[in-house]
């Protein structure tokens, strides 16, 4: 028993060492501006919310950036589930011709590098009037996440017993009705994992936002971070406060869904 607790203790040390950068972000953000360069202790000598106040009160459109990021992340999440949930089901269950090819197609396209598609997408979006539009970024981000969502969800469907669907089809339910009323509730954990993934990945997405959002008031929080250096120089305290605030939504979502995430991550990649 004592040995087990020793294992826990060492585990905790590993976690602490690994997550030190995250800690250092928070610690820096809580130091008074005057102490950031002088107070080099691991634990800040003095704690203040000064840096957070800086961000929220100075002429920096923090809330606009957060709102834009939120719209994009929610949009991507909804879009992925709407398109991904039925598609993954069809690829898991129904015997449609060529489904092996479809799965291969999805496996391959998920690996396309986004910076390679930035230029052609930019041209296409220019024609469609989707430059400086959050909707354009939503579409682009979906191309990054939808294939992965389909792969993860497919494994969730494979894990539910076929009998249930058979029962539904004997009852004379249409396929879509059976899907909505019987199948979907069964894969709720899978759906939740995918929703969390979509949200988290699109929250952190940078390249497409950088390419398609030219107008300052359309920027996401990741783009805003870059602007911040220009506006406030290297005020590391405020920079770290901004980093901490903008990772907050991710951390909340992660805490709420962490039970599912690790499993989802590996099922999408290996299975």
């Amino acid at each position, binding site marked *: 028993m004592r040995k087990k607790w020793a294992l826990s203790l060492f585990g905790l040390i590993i976690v602490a060492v690994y997550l030190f950068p995250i800690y250092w972000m928070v610690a820096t953000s809580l130091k008074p501006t005057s102490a950031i360069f002088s107070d080099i202790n691991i634990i800040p000598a003095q704690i203040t919310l000064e840096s957070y106040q800086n961000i929220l009160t100075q002429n920096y459109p923090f809330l606009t950036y957060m709102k834009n990021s939120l719209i994009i992340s929610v949009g991507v999440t909804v879009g992925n589930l709407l398109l991904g949930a039925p598609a993954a089901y069809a690829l898991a269950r129904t015997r449609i011709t060529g489904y092996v090819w479809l799965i291969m197609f999805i496996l391959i396209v998920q690996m396309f590098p986004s910076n390679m598609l930035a230029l052609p997408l930019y041209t296409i979006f220019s024609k469609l009037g989707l430059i400086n539009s959050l909707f354009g970024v939503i579409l682009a981000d979906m191309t990054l996440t939808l294939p992965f969502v389909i792969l993860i969800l497919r494994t969730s469907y494979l894990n539910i017993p076929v009998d249930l669907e058979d029962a539904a089809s004997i009852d004379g339910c249409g396929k879509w009705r059976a899907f909505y009323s019987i199948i979907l509730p069964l894969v709720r954990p899978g759906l939740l994992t995918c929703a969390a993934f979509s949200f988290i990945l699109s929250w952190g997405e940078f390249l497409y936002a950088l390419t398609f959002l030219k107008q300052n008031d359309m920027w996401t929080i990741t783009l805003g971070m870059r602007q911040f250096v220009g506006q406030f120089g290297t005020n590391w305290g405020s920079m770290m406060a901004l980093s901490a605030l903008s990772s907050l939504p991710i951390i909340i979502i992660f805490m709420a869904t962490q039970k599912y995430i690790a499993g989802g*991550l590996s099922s999408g990649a290996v299975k």
Partner: protein
Amino acid sequence: MKKRFENYSFVLPAIVFLMIFLLYPFAFNIYLSFRDINIGNLVQGDSPFIGLENYKTILSEPLFYKSLTQTVIFTFFTLVVSTSIGFLLASYFNKAFPGNKWMRSIMLLGWMTPIIIVGTIFKWMLDGKYGIVNNMLVNIGLMNSPINWLSDIDTALFAVTVTNIWLSIPFSMIILLSGLQGIPTYVYEPATIDGASRWQKFRYITLPLMTPTISILLILGLIYTFKVFDVIYIMTAGGPANSTQVVSYLAYELSFNLFRFGEGAALSNLALFIIAFFAILYVRKVQKESVVH
């Protein structure tokens, strides 16, 4: 007939979406790479056809070879180090002890935090004057004087690689952990009875059983690392003096900063060609491992 259509109606919207916004741009990029494009004709699309000219320009550019070499170094060290550390962590957190589940999942924070933010944090930690890394190294006595990690051409590539390793560790750990969990304990029993050492068990039982997982992880990691962009963008922008220039960043710069669109397109196609090779390898591996039902 109707039933058939119903089956397809599930999968069609997603496939059509991916074709329009993923497959079509991909094909379009190939088209662009054969054209002489400038800001004036990029969107209109009346650019003249110039054959392989863009590819020739890229292939005769010394910076291409420099960035390719640096990409290989960056990718190689990221993969080797993050997979090794990931394996050690996975083995450790695979043991049964209070809090192990919670600890494994909290490690994922590193993977989840937006790369732009991680890059900013590391930039601060590696700061030449006030960074904590210099501070610690000087205090411990490992270094005599602080180093300007990110603005020195000798250390910048090393610094961004370390950052990227940090980012990649949780993913490696989780994938390897799922592999380790798939090994039933009974396979170790005969070896235990025969009095095999820990190393022997690892070398002759764990490692062979983990080879499929490791190889999938390496291929996936290679594809992900090859397209890294954000880390470079926020930490060094390819500098100083192109010492952290990598292929994916260079391709973006050609198109969007230097407006040499055709060459940008050609370079990304070359990069994709390399990635595609490994992507096909991955698909074949996955198929072999878990026969598509």
